[in-house]
């Protein structure tokens, strides 16, 4: 049995070598397919690590409070675009009270909207971040010109706005912005500051937004009383659990929830870690979705192999007849052609794997060169997956031509011109 195997593999290799050009072209489909899967998984993992490290950079001692109860392990309903109105500005104030949550440094609450900004004849659409004074402390970020709004302005419906750097460029160009009056959805606002450029972190462009006192957004623009998100900064990472507990107690008390198990909560308190996990889940899904699309090219490569093998069987009809005449059984003919397909896909898989890894490595190098904190990640899993899938492709798409070859009538095959 073992001898038969070795013999079949030898015959296959010599047949493939006898047709080097065609063997390579057939292999190319698999090389590209496997390479694409490896590259996409590696680039996905690299991008994921980049996003995760950026989010970590935002501060791991942040706690997020979202409206609505979380499903087990899933994201809160509010993330899915469902509007829940259970959190208010007063909740944010209560959390920020040292009597309630002693470990908090500051709190930033958000009601977001979108609007059209107009300065003279220039207009620009951007997102309006109704936020609180705590923003700078909680989220980081610096004011480049002018100032951020004050606690008084936050509370007394002041019509003041701090522009993100991109908004400033779009609306004012090189002109001085601070001190100018602009219109936001027809309401007149005074520009009191411009933020320093910060870039895009974890899908969020920090520069393409404007900051307005949260109450002003709620009352004047959005016409709502609830807010979308509260972020709280804890003084020390070790105190996160305590702070989260304190926040929950505070909110349950304010919302008249007696159930302490959390089952009846109308809010969700999350640490940066859980947010990270969620982000990983989402990016993983994205990564594997892309890999699945890339593996379509493996399928196409497999069909290419079947096509070439069928051509090869027809072309080598005489050879098959001769092999049968000198004593090859149907099984041996079948094995030979099957092995040919498997060897093509296996070698293609190996070459694709090496090529994909090299390209992934170069991408990582370029990304690092461009200043991204990009990790070169090629997992054993993706390698095993790529190689085993390519061998399976060989078996699946090689079987039909191999069976066809083995069923040829030796006399017909010998006569074939």
């Amino acid at each position: 049995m073992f001898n038969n195997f070795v013999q079949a593999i030898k015959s296959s290799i010599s047949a493939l070598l006898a047709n080097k050009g065609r063997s390579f072209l057939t292999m190319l489909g698999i090389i590209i397919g496997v390479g694409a899967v490896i590259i996409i998984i590696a680039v996905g993992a690299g991008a994921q690590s980049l996003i995760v490290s950026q989010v970590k950079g935002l501060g791991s001692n942040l706690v997020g409070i979202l409206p609505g109860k979380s499903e087990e392990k899933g994201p809160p309903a509010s993330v899915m675009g469902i509007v829940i109105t259970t959190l208010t500005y007063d909740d944010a104030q209560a959390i920020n009270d040292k009597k309630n949550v002693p470990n908090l440094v500051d709190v930033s609450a958000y009601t977001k909207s979108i609007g059209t900004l107009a300065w003279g004849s220039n207009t620009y659409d951007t997102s309006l971040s109704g936020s609180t004074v705590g923003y700078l402390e909680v989220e980081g970020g610096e004011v480049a010109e002018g100032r951020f709004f004050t606690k008084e302005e936050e509370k007394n419906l002041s019509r003041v706005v701090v522009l993100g750097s991109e908004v400033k460029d779009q609306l004012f160009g090189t002109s001085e912005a601070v001190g100018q009056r602009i219109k936001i959805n027809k309401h007149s606002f005074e520009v009191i500051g411009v933020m320093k450029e910060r870039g895009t972190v974890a899908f969020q462009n920090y520069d393409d937004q404007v900051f307005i006192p949260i109450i002003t957004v709620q009352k004047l623009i959005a016409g709502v009383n609830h807010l979308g998100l509260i972020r709280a900064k804890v003084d020390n990472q070790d105190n996160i659990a305590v702070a989260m507990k304190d926040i929950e107690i505070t909110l349950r008390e304010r919302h008249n929830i007696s159930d302490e198990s959390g089952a009846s909560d109308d809010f969700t308190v999350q640490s940066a870690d859980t947010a990270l996990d969620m982000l990983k889940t989402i990016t993983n899904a994205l990564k594997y979705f892309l890999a699945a699309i890339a593996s379509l090219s493996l399928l196409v490569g497999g069909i290419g192999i079947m096509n070439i093998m069928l051509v090869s069987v027809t072309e080598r009809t005489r050879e098959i007849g001769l092999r049968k005449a000198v004593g090859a059984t149907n099984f041996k003919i079948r094995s030979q052609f099957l092995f040919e397909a498997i060897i093509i896909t296996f070698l293609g898989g190996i070459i694709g794997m090496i090529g994909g890894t090299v390209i992934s490595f170069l991408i990582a190098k370029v990304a690092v060169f461009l200043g991204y904190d990009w990790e070169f990640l090629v997992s054993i899993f993706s390698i095993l997956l790529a190689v085993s899938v390519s061998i399976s492709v060989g078996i699946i798409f090689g079987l039909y031509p191999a069976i066809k070859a083995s069923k040829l009538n030796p006399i017909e095959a010998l006569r074939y011109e």
Partner: protein
Amino acid sequence: MSNPLIEIKNLEKEYVSGEVVTKVLHGLSFNINKGEFVSIMGPSGSGKSTLMHILGFLDRLSTGKYLFNNKDVTQLEDDELALLRNEEVGFVFQAFNLLPRTTVLDNVKLPLLYSNKKGNIDEIATKVLESVGLGHRVNYFTNQISGGEKQRVAIARALVNNPSIIFADEPTGNLDSKSGVQVMAILQKLNDLGNTIILVTHETYTSEHAKRIIKIKDGMIEEDYLVKNRRYANDGEMLK
């Protein structure tokens, strides 16, 4: 005489294609003994190739009896026929049927790859090639040698498993006369050494190199006789 190597009784062969039944062989009976050199001769369409394919286990008869070494061949499975082809017969075809883009040695080794015999197959194959005068062509590719040499490679391939019978189907048909003589000389020499040879041809001249001629016409045996004035292929170099 002891048991014949091949015993054929009332052999018939018909091809069925849809509703059309074409009868090719009509009840042939003959025996072939070990060591014979038989020509199966007849015009094209006479059924001689079909007969050879049946005798060589490449095809099955429709009705009748075929005993090979006293064994009923009609009852055998495909894989058993493959084994017989491998161990008991060697084929030489008009068109040589060598594997393209493959060396002479690898072509000759082919039957050994499908057999269960032990031993150094490179050595065995090289020896057989030397015996047909191709020791110097072992590592040539089949497209680098002449037609006569190709047919000698094919003969070496037929011999390599030390078969009971060699079937030669118009072995000189694609060769110039000089190469044809060489090939016939080898076949005669092999017969002198005790090999059973069945030669299929449509040429009287070629067939007279055998010891016995079975003339086929329209699927029936027209004549079965011993050759009186046997022709000998003279090629000093090949016969030494």
